[in-house]
């Protein structure tokens, strides 16, 4: 049975180890030849998937064989719990490739099983908690836990600094916005006043109320301005204010300490107690000579 052009497809049983898939295995061919599957000609093996085996009866028998039905639950401590559909995603599917969703679902399962197992243990009067004065070897050594602590601290610090920077950035943005609003408003006011002055000059308006209004309105108004004012108020330099009051602020400095007509006539600083009658009044020269001659 020779086939020249056509290639016959034939199934060669899959017996080799799954790991050496490269190259032909002589043994495989030998087995196939011995079983009468191979005949002279060109062949292409169909690599069929290994048959799915699911011997349910055998599995259950084995389970029966190894089960520890004579042992109490405390000896085994197993909990079977339905894993909650993730709370993060509202649909039933947790994405396996989304690390966060996956870990949250595992965590939930562990949490539920811990709660139920602890209830069961405590109700049967078994203490599970380690007393504070019980010291024993831990799974992770102290120096390892120190490393973990250092890493956690560094993480915390990094998070804090980034948060602070973000906050500062927001504040700066807000300040700039307020400033822009203030300048815009000022320009607007100025324009209005100027236009009304023009109108007044031309005689379109007779009253000059706009000047007072503008002086009133020039004060910062509105929510944003009041906040700015608050900021400005907050930074009052009391020392400066006091010194300004004491020594004066601005203006001409020359000749300020000279006497004038009003200042020389001002006797408000005179106090009788201080400047008035003096106790030991020395008599005048003539009186003193007369007294001497009388002696």
């Amino acid at each position, binding site marked *: 049975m020779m086939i020249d052009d056509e290639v016959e497809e034939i199934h060669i049983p899959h017996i080799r180890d799954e*790991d050496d898939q490269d190259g032909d295995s002589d043994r495989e061919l030998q087995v196939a030849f011995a079983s009468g599957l191979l005949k002279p000609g060109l062949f292409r093996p169909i690599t069929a998937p290994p048959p799915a085996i699911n011997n349910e009866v055998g599995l259950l028998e084995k389970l029966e064989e190894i089960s520890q039905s004579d042992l109490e639950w405390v000896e085994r*401590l197993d909990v079977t719990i339905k894993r909650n559909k993730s709370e993060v995603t509202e649909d039933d599917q947790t994405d*396996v490739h989304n690390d966060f969703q996956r870990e949250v679902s595992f965590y939930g399962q562990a949490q539920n099983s811990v709660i139920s197992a602890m209830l069961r243990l405590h109700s049967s009067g078994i203490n599970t908690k380690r007393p504070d004065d019980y010291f024993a070897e831990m799974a992770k050594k102290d120096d390892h836990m120190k490393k973990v602590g250092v890493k956690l601290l560094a993480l915390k610090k990094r998070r804090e600094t980034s948060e602070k920077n973000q906050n500062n950035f927001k504040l700066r943005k807000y300040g700039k916005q307020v400033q822009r609003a203030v300048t815009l408003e000022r320009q607007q006011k100025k324009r209005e006043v100027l236009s009304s002055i023009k109108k007044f000059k031309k005689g379109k308006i007779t009253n000059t109320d706009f000047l007072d209004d503008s002086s009133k309105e020039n004060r910062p108004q509105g929510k944003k301005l009041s906040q700015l004012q608050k900021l400005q108020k907050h930074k009052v330099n009391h020392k400066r204010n006091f010194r300004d009051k004491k020594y004066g602020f601005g203006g001409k400095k020359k000749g300020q300490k000279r006497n004038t007509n009003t200042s020389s006539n001002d006797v408000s600083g005179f106090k009788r107690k201080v400047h008035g009658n003096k106790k030991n009044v020395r008599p005048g020269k003539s009186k003193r000579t007369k007294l001497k001659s009388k002696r």
Partner: protein
Amino acid sequence: MARKRKAGERNEQKSKLQKLNSEVKPEEQEPAVTNELTDMEPLTKGRWKNKQKVLVFTSRGITFKGRHLIKDLRNLMPHTKTDVKMDRKSDLLMVNEICELKNCNKCVYLVGKKGRDVYMWVSNVPHGPSALFHVEYLNMMEELKFTGNCLKASRPILSFDSKFDETPHMKLLKELFIQVFGTPNYHPKSQPFIDHVFTFSVMDGKIWFRNYQIVEETGGELVEIGPRFTMTLSRILSGSFGGPVLYCNPDYQSPNLMRHLHKKKNSMKYVEHKAAKVDKRMRRSDKTFATDETDQVFDTNLTAGS
């Protein structure tokens, strides 16, 4: 002479007995202080019922991650023993003999292949069953991202997904895991506290292992301790490291096949790109505008010019 000697011997014997008696008597009167510790019975005696001993070891040629996994498992499970690495070429049934020598009735045997793949055998030793897994996504307890900690020899709670109760093969695996990973109550090396939980979940056709510390019992606040790994079931055998196959996972892909498919997928990228280029060139027409030739029939200028 002879009489005398005998008499003398008698006397000597008497005196020896007297001496012995006199030596023994004071000891009997005083309680022996040195015996106090040996007299005390171990706390676990008579209470340790679930006698599981697990042999945890690897083959030669395991990756560093597999080696660390063994280290972590040994660290967390006080009921384990270990042995030297086994030669990969020797028969798998040798493992049974090693277990017998080591007096173990369960076995976790990690096999390293090609210097990168890690397989795990979990077996109930003399009579089976045994299961072969492909282990992936290994994360060690030593990694600093796991911030939890627990006692070295405390007993874990074993938490299973409800999918472990759905099919016979999963039920069998659950039973096997309970017996292998659970530390027996009153095991001499164990401690009587429960401060961590082993979690086995099924997702995406794999079994995911997690280990959490129990920070608060009532609220169930947990912190992960590690290690982490996934196990993809390949097959379940009825014997220990042998015997007929009870279950063969139809969705299992060997790591070789996975790598092959991945490579193939990537290789097609270049070919497809080239094909697309050729295709585009073929589709491009030579004409810039769709013109009708009959439009120029009555054009007098053209004829005059030519």
